[in-house]
């Protein structure tokens, strides 16, 4: 109480001094500027003045199909995802672009839930611990399954899973843990069976998880990236992106004590700033619906360095600027 009253007294005193020295209008201006500096982190925008995030591109617009539209009347085409047969014509069931592979016609929508294929790398969250398996959420239409026989036991032995292992499941992975895994197989109803039978997959420690929609992720050979700016990135095919500091990723296996010390170690401030900047860059690319892979994220990071304050990247104008410059650079590289 006394602190605020003394500071307000000081303000009144300084105000009166300044008033005496300069004059009424200038005093008012100075006071207004001081007041604005205190509240400068609040940004209010009108809905009618919203920034349009679409970045113009060189590609010509493809032909779009909308639900119920007839694609072709000929019978010798096979129907893929996004199409259905009515009468003797093939009709589209989603709004998107046609993908034709010889005689197979698919319509790919702009946004959809993740549809898994064998060999995809996914990042998921454990939902529940069941009898001999874990249920994992992977942004698809059904929850995925991680069998006990598909994980590496701690200690690395190759042995038959006993009843004891079933009791110890919770020690390995609990509800709420994040894991990176690979799709082993797809069940007949469409749900995925995952496995972590490699040293690079497994439970994830400290980092940032970002959820984007899966159609922005390109299928690549490698989904684990170590960016030169100092973060390690896992781009899951299901649209979950994991950003973590570099030192943590190199030591995923090892005995329990080492893992625990790594998990409780605080990440230093500079690493956290770099991770936050990468996150904001990814958000900027997603807002302008650009494809995500390690090159585009790295370009976006370099373009964003001109904004010293990481939180300035949250402005819609800054996001559009970063996305526009990244698109420009990618086109430049492609032309060469």
């Amino acid at each position, binding site marked *: 109480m006394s602190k605020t009253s003394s500071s307000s007294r000081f303000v009144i005193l300084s105000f009166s001094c300044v008033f005496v020295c300069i004059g009424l209008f200038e005093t008012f201006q100075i006071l207004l500027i001081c007041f604005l500096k205190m509240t400068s982190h609040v940004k209010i925008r009108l809905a009618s003045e919203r920034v349009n995030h*679409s*970045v*113009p*591109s060189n*590609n010509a*617009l*493809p032909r*779009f199909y*909308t*639900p*119920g*539209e007839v694609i072709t009347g000929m019978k010798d085409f096979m129907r893929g995802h*996004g199409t*259905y047969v*009515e009468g003797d014509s093939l009709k589209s*069931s*989603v*709004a*998107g*672009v*046609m*993908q*034709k*592979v*010889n005689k197979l016609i698919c319509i790919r*929508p*702009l*946004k*959809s*839930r993740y549809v898994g294929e064998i060999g995809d790398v996914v990042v998921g969250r454990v939902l529940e611990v069941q009898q001999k398996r874990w249920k994992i959420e992977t942004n698809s*239409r*059904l*929850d995925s399954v991680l069998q006990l026989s598909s994980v590496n036991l701690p200690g690395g032995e190759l042995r038959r899973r006993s009843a004891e292992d079933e009791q110890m499941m919770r020690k390995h992975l609990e509800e709420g843990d994040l894991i990176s895994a690979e799709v082993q197989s797809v069940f007949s*109803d469409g749900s995925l069976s995952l496995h972590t039978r490699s040293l690079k997959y497994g439970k994830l420690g400290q980092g940032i998880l970002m959820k984007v929609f899966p*159609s*922005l992720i*390109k299928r690549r050979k490698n989904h684990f990236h170590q960016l030169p700016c100092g973060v390690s990135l896992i781009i899951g095919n299901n649209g979950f992106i994991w950003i973590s500091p570099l030192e943590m990723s190199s030591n995923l296996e090892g005995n329990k004590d080492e893992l625990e010390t790594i998990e409780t170690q605080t990440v230093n401030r500079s690493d956290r700033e770099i991770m936050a900047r990468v996150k904001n860059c990814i958000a900027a690319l997603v807002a*302008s*619906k*650009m*494809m995500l892979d390690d090159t585009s994220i790295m370009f976006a990071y370099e373009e964003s360095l001109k904004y010293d304050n990481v939180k300035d990247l949250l402005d819609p104008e800054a996001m559009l600027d970063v996305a526009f410059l990244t*698109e420009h650079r990618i086109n430049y590289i492609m032309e060469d």
Partner: protein
Amino acid sequence: MPGPDLLSNQGLRLDGRRPNELRRIICKLGVFTQPDGSAYLEQGNTKVLAAVYGPHHAAKSKSLQDGVVVNCQYSMATFSTGERKNRPRGDRKSLEISMHLRQALTAAIKTELYPRSQIDIYVEVLQADGGAFCASVNAATLALIDAGIPLRAYACACSASMAWLNGEPEALVDVGHVEEAAGGVVLTVASLPSTGSIGLLEQSHRLHMDYFNIVMSRAMQGCRDIEVILDKAVREHLAEGWTKQDVVTI
């Protein structure tokens, strides 16, 4: 008998429209980032927001073996009507409209593709000026398209009423709140216009069989006109969002 003052001598309605004119429709897809699909639609002064979540894993008790479970929730904001609405959702009328919405949309969604999954559709009416159910169906269709859920065709809904012009019956399309309150019959049709099939048909008062065909055909024509408008909006949204993604054609 419909009120005689719904149509003037020159053939103009209470808000100045012709009998076969729809109200102005403005719509936008993808207004929210959190749900899988979202849309905003304005039909005259009626403003509606729709959000779609899914398809995701259905709870054991609710899942069906052979198709997807569609859940709809219709809610009106407290500031949407002239008098403050005390209960935004859960009252009898909202529950009935939720069921109708579910019936109309289940007719359009290809449910057999997603066994054991669930789709949740939430519709919020921000301003109700007549035809809120029709605007909800249209907005929900746009939200489903935005979420990438396969549909048999667009599901459009339109209402129609009847009035007298120089002794002849004349059907009025897209009734507003004032015309509804005047006491005339209101026929609401939710259909799939490209196939011509009907998902839901509802009528408020009594209508003589002789005049039913006139009103019905006017409402179906209204659905077809709305489909053209929604299709145009979907194509604009695709053009905006597609320019950077790969297209593979072999």
